[in-house]
């Protein structure tokens, strides 16, 4: 599967629209889930998800591929875009204006349900938003998306040891906010 995605990405980054659409098919829901974790409104999460894929194409020659997949890069980019959804919307205003919005559920209820569906504690969601873009990307990749620390480090341009340290500190910051909250943390190991 990874090898197939590497092939798809090779085609997509050379301008093959069908291949790019297939990459979108592969990752759209995980990108959307990442956006929902970090944003308050459904339309914001959709705009940020769309912007992440536009960024994927715009920066296609610079995307870090990890084990043949662009997903880690997409999730990191989504986290960064979520930090400034307004800026993301401004850059792609014309593109986003073409997407359907009518007849949608009110945003707040939409996202509240989405967060419940994600099985993400709202307190953790709030705490994640206190972290830097890189830390939230690292934490979501490893704790919520089951990437290895090595994979997350590769896409963020960190050494595995450096990523582990940052992850430990991010977890400590979350614990300060939520002292009773235990984050599943199998891979990272106790520091």
């Amino acid at each position: 599967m990874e090898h197939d995605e590497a092939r798809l990405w090779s085609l997509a980054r050379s301008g093959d629209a069908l291949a790019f659409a297939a990459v979108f098919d592969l990752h759209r829901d995980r990108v959307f889930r990442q956006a929902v974790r970090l944003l308050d409104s459904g339309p914001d999460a959709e705009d940020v998800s769309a912007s992440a894929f536009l960024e994927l194409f715009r920066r296609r020659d610079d995307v870090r591929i990890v084990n043949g997949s662009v997903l880690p890069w997409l999730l990191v980019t989504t986290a960064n875009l979520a930090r400034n959804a307004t800026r993301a919307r401004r850059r792609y205003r014309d593109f986003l204006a073409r997407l359907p919005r009518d007849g949608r559920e009110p945003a707040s209820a939409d996202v509240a349900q989405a967060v419940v569906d994600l099985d993400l504690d709202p307190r953790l969601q709030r705490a994640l938003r206190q972290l830097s873009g890189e830390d939230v990307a690292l934490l979501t990749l490893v704790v919520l998306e089951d990437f290895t620390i090595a994979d997350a480090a590769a896409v963020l341009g960190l050494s595995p040891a450096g990523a582990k340290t940052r992850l430990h500190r991010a977890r400590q910051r979350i614990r300060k906010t939520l002292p009773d909250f235990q984050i599943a943390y199998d891979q990272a190991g106790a520091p």
Partner: protein
Amino acid sequence: MTTQMDDRFASALREALIDHVQTAPARRRRAARRLALGVAAGLLLVALAAAGAVAAGIVRLPGTPDVAPLAASVTVTGEGTQTVELGAVPAGTTELEIRLACLTAGTFLTADGASLVCDGSDAGTSEMGWHLAVVAGQHSTVITAGAGERWRLVATYARVTDTAWGVNADGLTFGVENDRGTPDLVAAIASNGRVGYVYSRDLIEPAPTSLQVGGHSEPRTIPVYTSDGHTVIGQLGTAGNPSTAPASTAP
């Protein structure tokens, strides 16, 4: 219930992205581009890579990139970051084909930043195929890895040239996707094993309604024709969940 993008929004976004990519200004030709046909996740479009088609005894399909090794492969076993000398670049080289394998756990990067990440259980079994653009005058490539992280690189200079698509009696192009784009009829392997063509428009419409990981995908079939675009010889795949129905490749 799991969180996923609204289907209507996702379909519209998918179409808008296709339009965005198709209308993007052309970039310089990328030497890295060589694969014959991508595998559309969820559509179970079968890939017909040039080598696979040849190995299977299939006649070379129109538009298949012609990959010609121009020198003997160089195999190097290394540790940590190393520059690998590859020798003089043969005339006509367009890219460097590589296979990078990890022999220990570690993160291994190619010169263009593609990475292979291995844990202990991957050592000796995990390998990445890639292709690098060849820069004039450059006769080496760098593998970046941490101290003590061991790898094996097999690198081959190659010349990749596209072949022309066929044109049927209706004036429609047929063959495999390549640097020029997508032909009207795209090569595919039908579920009965016969090689034929599907209309590229059938691959776009309708957009999948559900590709949620672990979720349900609507079954879907596409007729597979001979190159005339009229004679049906089989059906292609069903919409599959990417996590449970990984796309197949030709043998």
